[in-house]
């Protein structure tokens, strides 16, 4: 009995060592649309790296957003050049030279990856979890984004229009180019 208990404890410890505790950060208003409703105190992005599997897990949570609405979520990387893929997801435009963009008076070169959609309920609350990987080892400088609709650079939604692709929420922000650094060992 004692041996079983010790084995269970060992398994639990090894599991927690492989997957780090999630980092939680807040959303701020986006760099295109500044008036989309959101409870910025309760809404968040949580992420963690599993170094053993070279994966990045993310949960996008929106609270107090527009009810019954689709918000496409993804990552904008600040970069000079970028690979064609990030884990199992294609990079918008196929990678290569990162594209310049100017928002909120700041110019950065970017590559984007679309990861999924948060669908809000009748209270404007929703979340979406995705595990990306395996990811090429490296240090990634990025912002998380929530768009004003679903279908930007994807099939089956509102299409690649300003109405759909405009950034409602960014994290960390509050200014375009404020980044989070994630290292995949």
């Amino acid at each position, binding site marked *: *009995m*004692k041996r*079983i*208990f010790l084995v*269970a404890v060992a398994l639990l410890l090894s599991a927690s060592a492989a997957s780090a505790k999630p980092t939680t950060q807040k959303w701020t208003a986006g760099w295109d649309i500044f008036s989309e409703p959101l409870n910025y105190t309760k809404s968040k992005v949580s992420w963690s790296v599993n170094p053993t599997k070279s994966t990045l897990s993310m949960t996008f949570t929106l609270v107090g957003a*527009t*009810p*019954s*609405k*689709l*918000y496409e979520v993804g990552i904008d990387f600040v970069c000079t050049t970028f690979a064609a*893929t990030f*884990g*199992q*997801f*294609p990079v918008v435009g196929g990678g290569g030279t990162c594209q310049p963009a100017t928002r909120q008076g700041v110019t950065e070169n970017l590559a984007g990856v*679309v*990861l*999924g*959609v948060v*669908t809000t*309920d*009748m*209270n404007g*609350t*929703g979340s*979406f*979890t995705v595990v990306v990987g395996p990811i090429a080892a490296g240090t990634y400088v990025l912002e998380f984004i929530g768009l*004003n*609709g*679903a*279908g930007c*650079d*994807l*099939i*089956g*939604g*509102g*299409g690649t229009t300003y109405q*759909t692709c405009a950034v409602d929420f960014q994290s960390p922000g509050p200014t375009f180019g404020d980044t989070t650094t994630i290292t995949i060992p």
Partner: protein
Amino acid sequence: MKRMLLVAAALLLATGTASAAATMQKWTAGWDNFGEPLNYKKSTISWSVNSAKSTLTVTFKLVSATPNKLYQVGIVPFCTTFPATFGQFPVDLGGGTCTQLTRQGVTASAVTIELGVVTTDMNGNGSFRVVIGPVAAGTYDVEFQARDGAGCDLTGGGGNGSDCADDFQSPGPFGTTTTITIP
């Protein structure tokens, strides 16, 4: 040490009682589109009821669908009348008298609740998990569905056009249901 082990076992049993084991079922071709690609052997829907919280947890999984595509997923209760909400989600058209539909030669009355979106990666794989609740106690005869895009009866997508077409259903064919009981 023995006491700790017993406490751990008791906690495990209590959790298992409140939340039943997940039921897994397969997708079949939808009642509108029959040519959408999917690996029907590996694609699944898993659902479970937590009787203590009156919640229904559903995980929609698509494998080898069209890459980089949005599939709006939902639940279709077959009914005569239905409330305006199902847990925290509104019922399309506001509930009331259920809408009569004829698909695959079968006529039945139903409502639809839009739950979320499966976004596929470059391999056509994706999943989406949602916890619905608290759901009113009752017995629900339902089909799960995946539409041909995102935005049907929701803001911010393709609108109520071709993206509303049903690509995948479960269990299917149209009118063949799964019974879910919320105690």
